[in-house]
């Protein structure tokens, strides 16, 4: 199993896509979209990160093991954030500090 070599053209194309996405995300930030602003900003950031990971970091042409490692890394980040927020987002509901006698 020898190494896959990404072509220079692909690199340039990805670079271009990243720049376009950067411009879009800045532009979108000034629109009034309500909660969609956050979603758009994060969606674009995730797209950019995926492009970097898949092409610049060669994960697209790597073994399944590498892909699992990458996914696991972000999955655990989600565990950390998600379960922490399970506390913070439910504190105002019935919690020991807001029950009312």
């Amino acid at each position, binding site marked *: 199993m020898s190494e896959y070599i990404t072509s220079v053209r692909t690199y340039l194309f990805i670079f271009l896509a990243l720049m376009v996405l950067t411009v879009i995300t800045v532009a979108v930030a000034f629109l009034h979209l309500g909660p969609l602003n956050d979603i758009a900003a994060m969606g674009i950031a995730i797209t950019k990160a995926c492009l970097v990971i898949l092409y610049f970091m060669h994960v697209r042409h790597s073994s399944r093991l590498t892909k699992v490692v990458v996914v696991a890394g972000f999955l655990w980040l989600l565990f950390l954030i998600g379960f922490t927020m399970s506390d913070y987002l439910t504190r*105002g*509901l*019935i*919690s*020991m*500090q*807001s*029950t*009312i*006698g």
Partner: protein
Amino acid sequence: MRKNVPLFPEQASTLAGEVDALYLTFLGISVFFGLLVAGLVIFFAIRFRRRSPDEIGRPEKAGILLEIIWSVIPLAILLIMFAWGAKVYVEAFRPPGNAVEYFVTAKQWMWKFQHPQGNREINVLHVPLGQPIRLTMTSEDVIHSFFVPAFRVKADVLPGRYTTVWFEASKVGTFHLFCAEYCGAEHSVMGGDIVVMNPADYELWLAGRDSGPSVVASGEELFRVKACNTCHRPDSATLAPILHGIFGEEAEFQDGSTQIVDENYIRESILNPTAKLVKGYKPLMPTYKGQLTEEEVLQLIGYIKSLASDATESQGTVPASGSPALDSDEG
């Protein structure tokens, strides 16, 4: 009663029996499984001991059925225990509607209590038998934890926030109060006594000393001294929201979000008024950070809560006005 050396703590609250039932059941299950495994291990180790140096064990076939059995049975038992434990826990942190509110302020290394009638105590709290009591607690410095083993209740006491715990004493006597969260040099002596008295004795005890103004009265006084009442008027909502009846209701903020008005919200509104601006008002209110002690903030909250019921009776005990927040939550 502390003289004899028991191996089990006294049961002195209505909750204690429930916690013990849960614990003893679980203990029984544990002893059963513990003895089962230990017994099998010892029996096998003797029965199948090596008899010649070259002997090897007899390999058995895979036992999928066994694996499933000993995964599913423990899981089922554990889930039942989870549900039971959750029931007791939720109960322990949701005070009944008729609970009387006492205030607790912890600091390194003492407990300060205030009765609704105004009496203050340090490291000793007298409470009447058979009356649900709800503690609203905060800390002036680090995290402490309010722990009365005989009542089986424990809750951390945090700086900058209120936590609550409740109990209904079921036995007259004096019981240990401990700080259960490590809080510094004198952590182990940051304790005291909870003295449970017959209601009549409690009344006598209260009457026997100068109680000072009640919590609500002190709060009302502060409300005037700090000039809160120049803006927060009962009759006009031009400068600031009317506070009457807001407690337990939903407040709507500038950005459209809402929150139930609870102790933590009122605290935040006093100390950091612009953090959540009620819809339709300008950020005019100055902060009272550093100008009020934790106890004074609690008194103000007690006063504002007393406004929740329409009559401004300052009788001390917080009336049992139902629990709107809970009701709406349970929907």
